[in-house]
């Protein structure tokens, strides 16, 4: 709960430069490091309307936090941790917090290329979107068609994407183009509850609802030809497929289960928290290790889920175009997580240290040369996928070397909402969103009619402003911009 305070963060906030702001550690009791916000003045004003900045300051109180509690320009009000936050804890004396990962463990994005042009797809767009809508279950009550045994579920948890590929649901090259090879080490199926498994069983291979989506996109602008070409992007007009989803009910249950464990653990280890949803345990404690094992299982479930959806995307294109996915060049550009905690090595001063990096609504953005960047991209940098909203555009970017010094190799994850679902519906009352999108050449299919207003452009910040701040700050750099032509929502 918010503590009684006399100071307002606005009176304490220091401008580092045009895109960096800091709240010093003496802003509130218990802060161990300053909180840093990446934003221009306009985005800072939006972030400041709610409790997001206060939440970034709360995260700075967590034991073992190193350097700064970081907030990206798409920061908004979360539970405990802000959405759009990054926090790294020393594995020696730091904590891990399920709230710093989020309910949707390994929510992330995936981008596929095609060698089709907009002109090839436009005449059959409606048919293609319908086919994708049938092939990829979405929305409330959407169930997966994969029937797997309990032992197979354990394998999914341990192996992630590779499990799907071994069963023919993907290409071996997909794994190389997935963060961590689509499998986080240390997954512990024994630490996952029966309930999480049950929720996972019916939802493996489903997109979900809310801000999750699957879009057929058109390459709209290329800012860095060399990098784009390496990622398989050529000329504007090229058709791509971009989707966003995570670990579904499985990850939610793991988060829920461990919030309870961590609430008790926080008390047991004497960790004082300004907000209960920051509940955590020392990384080296039994509770911390159990959570990391269960979280890795959920992360692997999410990678398997996105792998299976990619399989259906390829099949749907094959069905509509009567050509193989190989012939259509449907390669995976990259799959990247934006809700995850990872044990990584980073430079702190002159030392090489092991940290637990929480990225809650933030995307890993390792620059050129980093050993975790796939070999084929290593001299360019890891692709970063940043979705916007269904009426505007999304971005493909790469991490910059400065990201390793300032943000643990992380950047933003999207636009960030500015209007609640109900406010969006109020503002858009009487407007037929489906028609408005159709007039823009965008075909949309959705199970939940009201979601169209809830997810309209008016509900989100302009993602172009968000990525621009990070480009100017030297954290990540734009490679290409894509616009939607077909949209599937839950």
């Amino acid at each position, binding site marked *: 709960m918010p503590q009684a305070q006399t100071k307002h963060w606005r009176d304490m906030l220091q401008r580092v430069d045009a895109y960096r702001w800091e709240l010093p550690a003496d802003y509130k009791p218990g802060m161990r490091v300053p909180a840093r916000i990446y934003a221009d003045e306009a985005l800072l004003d939006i972030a400041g309307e709610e409790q997001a900045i206060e939440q970034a300051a709360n995260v700075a109180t967590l034991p073992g936090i190193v350097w700064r509690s970081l907030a990206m320009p798409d920061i908004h009000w979360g539970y405990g941790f802000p959405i759009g936050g990054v926090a790294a804890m020393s594995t020696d004396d730091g904590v891990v917090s399920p709230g710093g990962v989020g309910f949707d463990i390994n929510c992330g994005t995936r981008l596929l290329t095609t060698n089709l042009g907009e002109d090839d797809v436009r005449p059959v767009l409606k048919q293609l979107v319908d086919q994708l809508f049938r092939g990829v279950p979405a*929305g409330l009550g959407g169930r997966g068609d994969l029937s797997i045994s309990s032992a197979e579920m354990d394998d999914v948890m341990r192996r992630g994407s590779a499990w799907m590929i071994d069963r023919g649901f993907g290409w071996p090259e997909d794994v190389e183009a997935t963060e961590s090879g689509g499998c986080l080490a240390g997954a512990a199926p024994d630490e996952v509850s029966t309930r999480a498994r049950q929720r996972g069983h019916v939802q493996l291979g489903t997109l979900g*609802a809310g801000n999750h989506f699957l879009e057929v996109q058109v390459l709209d602008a290329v800012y860095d030809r060399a990098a784009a070409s390496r990622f398989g992007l050529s000329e504007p007009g090229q058709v791509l497929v971009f989707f966003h989803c995570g670990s579904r009910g499985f990850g*939610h249950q793991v988060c829920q289960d461990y919030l309870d464990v961590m609430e008790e653990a926080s008390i047991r280890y004497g960790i004082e928290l300004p907000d*209960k949803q920051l509940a955590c345990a020392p990384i080296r404690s039994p509770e911390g290790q159990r959570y990391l094992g269960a979280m890795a299982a959920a992360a692997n479930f999410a990678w398997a889920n996105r792998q299976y959806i990619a399989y259906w995307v390829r099949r749907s294109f094959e069905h509509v175009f009567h050509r193989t996915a190989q012939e259509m060049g449907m390669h995976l550009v990259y799959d990247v997580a934006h809700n995850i905690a990872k044990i990584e090595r980073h430079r702190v001063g002159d030392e090489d240290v092991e940290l637990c990096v929480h990225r809650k609504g933030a995307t890993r953005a390792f620059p050129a040369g980093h050993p975790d960047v796939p070999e084929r991209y290593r001299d360019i940098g890891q692709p970063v996928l940043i979705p916007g909203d269904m009426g505007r555009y999304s971005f493909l970017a790469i991490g910059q070397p400065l990201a390793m010094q300032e943000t643990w190799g992380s950047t933003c994850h999207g636009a960030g909402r500015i209007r609640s*679902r109900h406010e969006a519906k109020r503002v858009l009352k009487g407007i037929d969103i489906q028609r408005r999108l159709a007039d823009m050449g965008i075909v949309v299919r959705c199970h939940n009619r009201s979601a169209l207003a809830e997810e309209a452009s008016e509900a989100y910040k302009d993602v172009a402003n968000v990525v621009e701040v990070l480009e100017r700050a030297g954290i990540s750099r734009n490679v290409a911009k894509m616009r939607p032509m077909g949209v599937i929502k839950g």
Partner: protein
Amino acid sequence: MALPKPDFEILEHTADAGIVAHGATLAEAFAHTAEGMYALMVDPDGVRELEARETVASGQDLPHLLANWLLELLFLTETEGLVFHRFDVDIDDTAMQLRATAHGEPIDRDRHALGGDIKGVTRHLLEVEREDGGYRIRVLFDM
């Protein structure tokens, strides 16, 4: 005389949505919270009473009891594909235990006007409090 309080109202939140519910009794306030939760997912007028499920929950205090029960209902929705619109609730607030019957039917994507998919119950802003004439509950969902 003050206007009667609505059974539930929608609580706005930038990224998600919640419910503020009222009830003359604790059991009624719990039932109205669940009604509100399902109203975010499906138009309640279109939900028929074809099936019922018995649910039980416990918790260390009232907010935990409420959250655990709502999670129990969401579990049935996810795994059995059921939506509910009426709840008979019985609470023992000394033992912190709840027993409730949920009435509803399987999701029918052609007939039901579907809303959002609630994925979790957050502890953020969670409150179960006494107010004039009964109880007030506030809960925020992860959507």
